[in-house]
C-alpha cells in the first residue's frame, strides 16, 4: 500500500512523475446552492513508463479524475502536474481514449487516424502514409476506406487506439476503453494494448471497473471508494512479470492472491455503490 512512484520503478530515477495529482477535489455545481462532490482529496502519481489502473465501483468519479489529468476539467481544489509542470488548460502531452464512440463519423478509418497528425501540421500525404501504417499495426490494414459505422465495436476501438498513438503522446489516458466490448474482444484488445505499449512504455492511466482487467494489464492498481466524495483507498503493486499474456496471466498464483486481497477492500465499496445507485 502507498507505493511511491520512485519505489515502483527504481531504475527510472526521473525526478518528476508523468502525472501527479495532489489533493484533488472536484465539486460540481448542480443548481442553486446544490453541489455534488465527485472526488475528494485524491492524491495519485504515475511515473514515466508506468501503467496504473484505477478501479472503483460505478459512479465513483474515476472518469472525473481522468478528465482532470487530461485538462478537460479543472479541479475545484488541489493541483495537477504533468512532468513537473502545473497543468493549465488541455494536457498536450496526453492522448485520451474515450469510453464512448469518439471517432469522427464523417471520416474514414484512415482519415480518422491521420487527423491527429494533420492538426499538428504534418503534410496530408505523409500523415496518410503513417496512418496506413498504424492501421496495419492495430490489425486493420484492409479497412482504411471504411467509415466508423461500417466497423464493429472492437474495430472502432482499434482505430481509436491508432488515432491516439499516432501522435506519440507521452501519457496515455484510457477511460474504460474496452468497456462496451465482449469478453473475448476485450482480451484481444488488452493484449494488443500491452503489445503496443511495450514498444515505448508510455505512462498509462487506465480507468476500469473490472479488477481482473486492471491486474492483468497494469503495474499498479489504485482503488477508489464509492461516491459521492470518492477517495483513493488503496494502492497495490502487481508482482507479475512482463511480457504478459492476458488470458494466461489469470491462471497465475500471484494474480489470484492479489485479486483476493484487493477484492476484500473493493467488495464493500461496490456494495455501497450499488446501494447508492439503486443497483443501477
Amino acid at each position: 500500500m502507498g507505493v511511491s512512484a520512485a519505489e515502483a520503478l527504481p531504475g527510472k530515477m526521473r525526478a518528476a512523475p508523468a502525472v501527479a495529482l495532489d489533493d484533488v477535489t472536484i465539486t460540481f455545481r448542480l443548481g442553486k446552492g446544490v453541489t455534488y462532490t465527485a472526488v475528494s482529496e485524491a492524491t495519485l502519481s504515475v511515473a514515466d513508463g508506468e501503467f496504473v489502473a484505477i478501479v472503483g465501483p460505478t459512479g465513483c468519479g474515476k472518469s472525473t479524475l481522468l478528465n482532470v489529468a487530461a485538462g478537460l476539467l479543472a479541479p475545484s481544489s488541489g493541483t495537477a502536474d504533468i512532468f513537473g509542470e502545473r497543468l493549465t488548460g488541455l494536457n498536450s502531452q496526453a492522448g485520451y481514449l474515450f469510453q464512448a464512440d469518439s471517432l469522427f463519423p464523417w471520416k474514414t478509418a484512415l482519415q480518422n487516424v491521420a487527423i491527429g497528425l494533420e492538426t499538428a501540421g504534418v503534410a496530408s500525404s505523409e500523415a496518410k502514409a503513417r496512418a496506413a501504417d498504424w492501421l496495419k499495426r492495430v490489425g486493420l490494414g484492409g479497412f482504411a476506406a471504411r467509415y466508423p459505422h461500417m466497423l464493429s465495436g472492437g474495430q472502432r476501438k482499434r482505430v481509436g487506439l491508432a488515432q491516439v498513438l499516432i501522435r506519440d503522446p507521452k501519457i496515455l489516458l484510457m477511460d474504460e476503453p474496452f468497456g462496451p466490448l465482449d469478453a473475448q474482444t476485450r482480451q484481444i484488445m488488452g493484449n494488443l494494448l500491452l503489445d503496443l505499449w511495450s514498444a515505448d512504455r508510455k505512462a498509462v492511466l487506465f480507468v476500469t471497473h473490472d479488477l481482473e482487467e486492471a491486474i492483468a494489464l497494469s503495474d499498479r492498481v489504485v482503488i477508489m471508494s464509492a461516491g459521492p466524495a470518492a477517495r483513493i483507498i488503496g494502492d497495490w503493486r502487481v508482482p507479475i512479470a512482463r511480457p504478459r499474456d492476458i488470458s494466461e496471466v489469470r491462471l497465475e498464483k500471484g494474480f489470484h492472491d492479489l485479486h483476493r486481497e484487493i477484492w476484500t477492500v473493493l467488495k464493500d465499496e461496490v456494495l455501497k455503490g450499488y446501494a447508492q445507485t439503486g443497483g443501477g
Partner: protein
Amino acid sequence: MSRVTLIGFQILVMVVTLAAWHLLTTVPMSNGKPLVPPFFFSTPGDVFARIWQWFADGSIWRHLWITLTEATLAFVIGSVGGILVGFWFARQPLIAAIFDPYVKMINALPRIVLAPIFTLWFGLGIWSKVALGVTLVFFIVFFNVYQGVREVSPTVLANARMLGMNERQLMRHVYWPSALSWMFSSLHTSVGFAVVGAVVGEYLGSAAGLGYLILQAEGTFDIAGVFAGMFVLAAFVIVIDGIVTLVERRLLVWRPAAADTRT
C-alpha cells in the same frame, strides 16, 4: 419486392388513374354526356396534346428555365444565409437568445403574405420570386445548421480537442461536417420549398414561368392548360428530387443506412 415488380406496380397506378380519368370524361352515358364534365376536368388526350404542343413549338423551355433559375437562386441564397446565420447563432448563444423571439415570429408568419411586398420591392421580374423562395429555404437550412452545430457529440468534441485541434480546425473537421449532414438531411424539403417559392411567386404576378403558365390558363378557363402546367411542374419536381438524391448519396456516404445484405 424486386425493383422491376415495384416499378411495374407504380406504372400500373398511373395507367389505372389515367384510364379512369379518360373513361369518365369521354364515354357518353345514357343522357349522351360523360359522367364527369370535360369542361371542368379536361381529358387526358387534350392535356397530353397541350404538353406535346408546348414542347413541339419550344415555348415551354423559356418558362421552365425561368422557374429553374428562380428556384436555384432561392436555394443557393437561402442556404448560404441559413448556414452563415446558423453557425453564428450556434457559436454565439447570447446573439441566439436575443434574436430567438424574432426568429420564431418570422418563421411562424405565412410567407405568402410577404409576396405582395416583395413584388413592390423587387418588381415583377425573377427577384421577387427568388426573395419569396429565400424566406422559405433560409429557415429550414438555418434551423438544421443551428441544430447540427449544437448537437455535436460532446465525446467527439472532447476527442477533437485532445487531438490538438484549434478553433479553426474544430470548425473545419467537426462543426462544419456535422452541420452539413443536418442540412443535407433536409435537402429534399429545402429544394422543394425553393420550387414552391418560385411557382407561388409567379402565380401571384409575373410574366413568365410555370406558375405564370398555369395562371394564364386558369384565367381563360383553359382547364387542359392548367392540368398540362401541373403535369410539367410535377415532372420538373421529380427530376430535381432525383438529382438531390444523387447528390445526397454522394455526400452522405459516411452515414449508416438501413442494413442492406444484397450482394
